[in-house]
């Protein structure tokens, strides 16, 4: 890695988001202290007032792109960084705020601000990968800090990072949970969502609501059919799938079809 006695120069950026994924990084606590020998935190505005203009070896990006200004900044980050890794469901799929993409934008701003003309916001809020080329992505709301640590460690040794992208059902089975959909008829997004959270919701006897985003090659049409079979009206099926990752390619394409009927 460039300069600095072989230390990896890490930058952490935030766009439209809740700061929760950066916080997961801070929540690493002692683990963060332990990798700090090999990592130089060059830019992490929430944690440090030391501002290093770059270039960086690795840029972690939290949040989605919502304003013309953010569009410019994210392009600069790309130019200034060797490896760009969006972290969290906002950065990877658009996040909860992308729910507004399904509504009329003029209406949205007018509903919220008394002087909508002072608000400078793009029509849609979109994932980082719609604006720049990304090298790897780790989803989650929040991102799982241990997954993040594992990805960082892989990058540190110069490996191309990898983490599992199978369905939540796999993780749920490994935990030995009873399926909430089979046993109680509770609608669960597990069959199309990516693992990584520890199958938390089914472990708490509730259905997955999709905060980690879709698995690799999901089948939303099959799940929607299943939801209908257990008695969910169409508009509720739409609400279930219109979740924090509904702006991801596979869910968006499916919803556009399904809503037409």
């Amino acid at each position, binding site marked *: 890695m460039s300069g600095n006695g072989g230390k990896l120069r890490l930058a952490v950026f935030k766009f439209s988001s809740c700061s929760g994924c950066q916080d997961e990084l*801070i929540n690493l606590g*002692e683990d963060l202290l332990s990798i700090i020998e090999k990592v130089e*935190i060059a830019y992490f505005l929430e944690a*440090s007032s030391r501002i290093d203009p770059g270039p960086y070896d690795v840029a972690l990006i939290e949040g989605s792109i919502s*304003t013309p200004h953010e569009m410019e900044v994210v392009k600069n980050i790309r130019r200034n960084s060797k490896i760009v890794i969006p972290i969290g469901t906002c950065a990877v799929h658009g996040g*909860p705020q992308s729910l507004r993409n399904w509504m009329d934008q003029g209406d949205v701003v007018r*509903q*919220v*601000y008394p002087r909508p003309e002072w608000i400078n916001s793009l029509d849609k809020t979109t994932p980082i990968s719609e604006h720049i080329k990304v090298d790897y992505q780790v989803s989650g709301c929040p991102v799982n800090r241990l997954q993040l640590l594992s990805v960082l460690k892989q990058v540190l040794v110069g490996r191309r990072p990898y983490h599992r992208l199978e369905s939540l059902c796999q993780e749920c089975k490994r935990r030995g949970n009873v399926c909430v959909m089979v046993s109680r008829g509770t609608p669960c997004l597990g069959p199309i969502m990516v693992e990584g959270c520890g199958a938390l919701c089914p472990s*708490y006897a509730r259905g997955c609501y999709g905060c980690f985003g879709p698995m690799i090659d999901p089948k939303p049409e099959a799940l929607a059919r299943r939801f209908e079979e257990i008695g969910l009206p169409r508009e509720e099926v739409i609400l279930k799938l219109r979740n924090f990752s509904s702006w991801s390619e596979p869910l968006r394409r499916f919803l556009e079809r399904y809503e037409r009927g």
Partner: protein
Amino acid sequence: MSGDKSFEIKVGQLARVEGEGGVWVRVKNGKIDYVEVNIFEPPRFFEAFLRGRSYLEAPDITARICGICPLAYIFAACRAMEKILEINVPEEIQVLRKIAFYGEWIESHVLHFAFLHAPDFLGYHSALEMAKDYPNLVRNAIAVRDWGNRAIEIIGGRAIHPIGFRIGGLYRIIRKEELEPLSRNYEEIRRKGEELLEFVLNMDLPDIQYDMTLMSLKGRKEYPILEGLVANNLGWEFPEDSFEENITVEQKMYSNGLHYRLRNGKPYITGPIARFNLNYDLLAPEVRDVLEAAGYRAPLKNTYQSIVARAAENLHSIIEVGRLVEEYSEPQTPYVDARVRAGEAAAIVEAPRGMLYHRYRIDELGRIVYANIVPPTTQNYVAMEEDIFKVGDLIVKGPPETAQRIVEMTIRNYDPCISCSVHAIKLRIINE
């Protein structure tokens, strides 16, 4: 001399705060002439896309407004919906909510006073740099913070955006023995919490005094966290439902965060310093002992001392978690259900940064038709700007490098959560 000094301080990007904001201060002829706290964090329009969603989704969706204090959002949403549906949450579940919520206060307070704010007073850029010279401070802070996060994880599944809480209670019953990891090292964590408070009490904090209008919930028997009457140090007291009648709101062209004041036009401060001064007698006696041994007690005199309130509340939270874990007995059912009906209600909880207000109206099918959310940081923006005028002498008389540092410190006194604050938006009802 300072009498003819004219200059500008522009902080394009505030560091060590949550979210995106800057400050602009203009000094003319030795006096602060103009202050602008500029919030460019993009709005995310939660109130708009909540409409049409199920009332059951309000806690999980609004939690995403803030990654530092998601539980405050979860509990404000739960309490408002429970009021609409007339659900009485049993005591056992209240105990679990409080354990987790105090866990969040610990996680958020330690993050701020030890990692984001202490570097200001000790002269570092970050906690990581500070760790070399103050290894104990940083290690204690990490241990206490982990313990607070653990309290949330045990009950809610994970520390950030926990999934275990719902309207009426919890998704599953938490067994008494599941709380055991918290009692196991309680004594050690409490000692560390005490050391952290003592460390803060020994720091050299500016000793100026100025008027502060403070507003927070007021507890009856307990320090306020989940509920209470709204009170301020002007002697006002009113129920949470009439919050909007007691404040005014205004949009500024330079900011995506709205500006709130009392209905008489006065800016006010919400947060730890307000709770501390208005509820001092309700802090655990052990906390007051440590404070008073160091010569501190309510009222704190200026917002730089908010770090004292935060460290004191942190120790109080640790002691409360310890007590509540002992007290806990398992509820009969994980949650109380109720028939859905149309209605409207408001609730205020004390987020780590101060009063968080939620109001919802739902229809007979339980769909949200209206939402208004007022986070704490947005209530503090006017007070932040005012504070910079109040400490004008400190800013003007020193060299320009110190001036900028003091401006930033003054903002950081509020532990601003800018990510939250841009959703602090009064929803104008249209098409109705």
